[in-house]
Structure formats: C-alpha cells, structure tokens
C-alpha cells in the first residue's frame, strides 16, 4: 500500500516535471522550425540580418573619424535588440494573417507565451551574428571580463521586454501593413529619440525624467557603465536594472493578459 502510493507519487512527480518542461520544449521546437530550419534552407538571410545593425554604427564611425565609437557601439547594440523584439511582432502578424499559423497554435496545447518565446528565440538566432560582433566590440572597447554577466543580463532583459511588447503590439494590429508602420514608429520612440546613441548629458533637464522613463536609456547607460564611461550622478546600476526588470515584468504581463490570442 505504502509502496503503491510512493509509486503513484513518483509518477505524479514525473508527470508534473514533464508537463512543466513541455512549454520550454515547445518554445525550442518552435524556434527550431521557424529559425534553424529556415536558416538551413536560406542561409543568405543570415547575412542580411547580420549586417543591418551596423549601418548607423558605420555612419557615426565615419563622421566622427572613429572618435564616437563607444556610444555608437552601445547604441547599435541596444537598437539591434529593440529591432529583434519589433521584428518578432512583424513575424507574428505575418504568420497570423498570411499562414493562419496562429489559428493552428491557438487551438492546440501551446500557450501564447510559449508561442511568443519560440518566435523570440528564433529572432535571437537570426540576430546572433550581429550580437556576437557587437558584444565583442563592447568587450574590445573597454568592458572587463567581470562585466560579462551584466552584459548578458542587459541583453536578455531588453530582448525579453521588447519581444513581449512586439507580441502585444502585433496582436492588436489588424493588418500587416499597419503593423509595419506602428513598428517603425515605436523604433523611433525607443531607439532614436532617447539617449541611446548619444549621452544623456545632452538631454535638457526638463526632459530627463522622460528619458529615464525609457528602458532603452537604461540599457544604454548600463553598457556605457560596463565600458568604463562616466554616467550621471543621479543614475546608478541598481536603478538601471530596476527599470529594465520592471519593464520586462510589465510587458510580459501585458502580453500574457492583454495580447489577443483568441479573437473577440
């Protein structure tokens, strides 16, 4: 009897372990299908996604005669990560309207967050070459080995929150074209206007609270800090991470509760 319940319990535990692992496995399989398999058949697309984050870096590098390289590297890394989240939004609306992929996933044991994670991982895979080059540049231009965990944490936080935001936005867009327009607008709001490519010192005092309200400002400041550049006295690493974590939690909560999965 006792043995029997023990066995039952063991079975139950395995069941829980298996079912709680399933979403992770599902996310990786989705990433495998939409990322790995796709790249295997279209390796050239990797070249295009790998090159695009370097366009602004290149311009800034040339204009400044090489002097502006740190902010340019930092800005490019942050903007690339924003871009992957937004590209996720674009992919999701494309899969939904053109392929009816979402219809198949909604009526299946895959949760919206798992679906989002899967596609976000696949975006990350597409971005990997650029990310490797950009993080190497961050290391090269001043970061110490000890700051690698900070660097990775920053990348994951921004990638996570931007992906959740992309998912949320795309689920609310009715049309593909609409999504593309909104996405380039959001890119400007998050990556161009705030002090991502330039120092926050240039932001007038009155606009600073606004700048500090942007997650990308903090990502940029953390990276500058890692690279040994001075950061404003009113800012600290803890503050930066607190804002990034808050955004991650907020956007994931938004994606979980407010993104449209089943239509109304």
């Amino acid at each position, binding site marked *: 009897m006792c043995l029997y319940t023990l066995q039952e319990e063991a079975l139950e535990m395995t069941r829980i372990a298996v079912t709680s692992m399933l979403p992770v496995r599902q996310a990786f399989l989705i990433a495998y*299908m939409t990322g790995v398999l796709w790249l295997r058949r279209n390796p050239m697309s990797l070249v295009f996604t790998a090159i695009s984050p370097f366009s602004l870096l290149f311009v800034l590098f040339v204009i400044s005669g090489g002097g502006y390289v740190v902010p340019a590297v930092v800005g490019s890394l942050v903007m690339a990560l924003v871009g992957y989240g937004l590209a996720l939004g674009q992919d999701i609306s494309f899969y939904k309207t*053109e392929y009816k992929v979402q219809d198949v996933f909604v*009526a299946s*044991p895959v949760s919206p967050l798992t679906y989002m994670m899967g596609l976000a991982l696949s975006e990350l895979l597409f971005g990997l070459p650029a990310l490797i080059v950009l993080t190497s540049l961050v290391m090269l231009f001043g970061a110490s080995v000890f700051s690698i965990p900070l660097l990775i944490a920053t990348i994951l936080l921004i990638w996570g929150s931007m992906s959740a935001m992309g998912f949320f936005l795309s689920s609310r867009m009715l049309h593909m074209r609409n999504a593309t327009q909104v996405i380039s607008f959001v890119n400007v709001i998050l990556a161009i206007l705030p002090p991502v490519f330039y120092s926050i010192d240039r932001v007038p005092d009155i606009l600073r609270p606004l700048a500090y309200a942007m997650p990308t400002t903090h990502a940029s400041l953390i990276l500058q800090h890692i690279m040994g550049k001075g950061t404003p006295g009113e800012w600290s690493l803890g503050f930066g991470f607190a804002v990034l974590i808050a955004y991650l939690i907020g956007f994931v909560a938004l994606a979980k509760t407010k993104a449209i999965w089943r*239509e109304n």
Partner: protein
Amino acid sequence: MLAIEAASITKIYKGARQAALSDVSLKVEAGRIFTLLGRNGAGKTTFVRVCATQLMPTSGSISVLGYDVAKQAKQIRDLISVVPQEGRPLRALTSWDHVYNWLQIRGEGKQIAKDKTEEILRKLELYEARDRPAMNLSGGMKQKILVAMAMATDAQLLFLDEPTIGLDPMSRRQVWSAINDWKSKGGSILLTTHYMDEAEMLSDYIVIIDRGAVIARGTIQELRRVIPQNIRVDIARDGLDVDALRPYGSVVDTGAGMLRVFTFESAVRELSELALRKNLTFTVSPVTLDDVFVYLAGRGIGDDQNSSD
C-alpha cells in the same frame, strides 16, 4: 457523449451590422462525422472557430468535449486539432518538418512522432516528397500538409474547414479514407465542405446553415425527404416546352442546358418516353444532397430557382 453542444450561439463581429451566427443550437455526437453546409458567408468558419476556441462568441454557450468554450479553453485545446480554412504551410519547411515537429510540440516523444509522421505522409501520398520545401510543392500538396498535421495528432475532436479544397480526386479520396480511419479509432469530426458528394459520402449528420441560422438538419436520408419527390430526371432542354414537364413535378433549370424534374417513380416511365420520343438525352437518379442543398439554401436568396413549380 457529446463532442459539441452549442446553445443559442450568436456571433456579431466588431463593427458588423449583421450577425454571422444567430441563435445557433446544435449537438455533435462523439465518434461521428458531423458536417456543416452552407453558402459562402453562411457562418461555417465562424462556428468552427468559436468551437475551436479561436474566437469568442458574442452570446450563448458551447461545451466542447464536456468543457466550456469560454471558461475552460485550456482543457479543450489539449483535445482538439484543426485545419483552418485558407491555411498555408511555412514555405521553407518540408511536409516532414511540419508534421514531425508539430507532433513533438503537442507533446509526443521522438519515436512516436516519427512513426506517426511516416504513417500519415504515406497515407496522404506526401511521403515521396517529404524532403521538398513547401514552396516547391503544388497547391494541393500544400493543403495536404495542413491536413496531415492535424490528422497525425491524437486529438479527440478534429475541425476540418474545407480540408479538401483544391485537391485532385485521388487526393480527396486519400483524405476521406484518413477521415474514416480517424472515426474508426473513435475520434469525432466537425467538417465543412462545399463538395456535396464529399458530405454525402462521409457525414453521419448534417446541419445546413444560411445567413447564420440553422435551416435544416438531419441524416442524409432525413434531409433527402426535405424535397417531396424522391427521384430526379434530367432532360436536355433543346426545344423542350417547360410546361409539358410541369405536370410531373417541380422543374428546375440546372443552368447547363438541362432541365431537372423532381418527381416520383410512377412518373419516370412517362418522362423517359417523352424524352425518347423527342430524341433527347436524359438521366434518372435519386435525389441527391446537392439537390437538397440547392432546394434549401437557394431559397430566399432572391433567385427563384425553386419557384417554378
């Protein structure tokens, strides 16, 4: 047990003036093939999507496999599988990639996923082309990939929204046979189609909807009885006086140079003699589902196809 029980389902899309479904109530027995027929825009896809937890109804309640669609979607989603209307496979992926990975996503182990993938791909004649990316496959083969994905799963209830669209006659039969296999394993199916022969061949029960409302329901035999006469005689139109046919039953223009007379066995002999005298081709057959459909759904649309009697 009931696979689906819908009570007074109404669906009004945001901004729409008319209801896509109004007050639809129906029951789908488990282990059966249930077919939804209706003209374009009748509300078939809307109903399927509501049942498959893809779309919220505006009012009414539906339980699917005993769970409430609005509140227990998660439980339902473990047990169902769908072929959406106008779905497409991902361009760069092969049929094998689609089915094999999809089964794993749904929780199957690798070996079982492999076996099941091979089985369904062979059944639907996709196995030979299993290594070719979907973008290099024909339209019908792409459609079959979606059918294969849904039918390889071990779901209890399958939603097939026009699954055989664009398939050649052989491929349609492969899908029919897969559908029958599914049923023989105890699975339930909600099917929509515009092919009346398909509906006639597969369905255990049929519901016809028109402009969002149920206008007829029953088995094929029951629906056939909707038309008072049980025989139809098609006669070539050439020089034939429609009025000469009226005494035998209701006359319909098939639109293909033939007149169709719905009548009884007793009149068949006279009608055939009439046709033979005038040297006109004619065919005699029992009333089909197609006739029933035109008879029912053709009404009130504004054309007076059925008012010539």
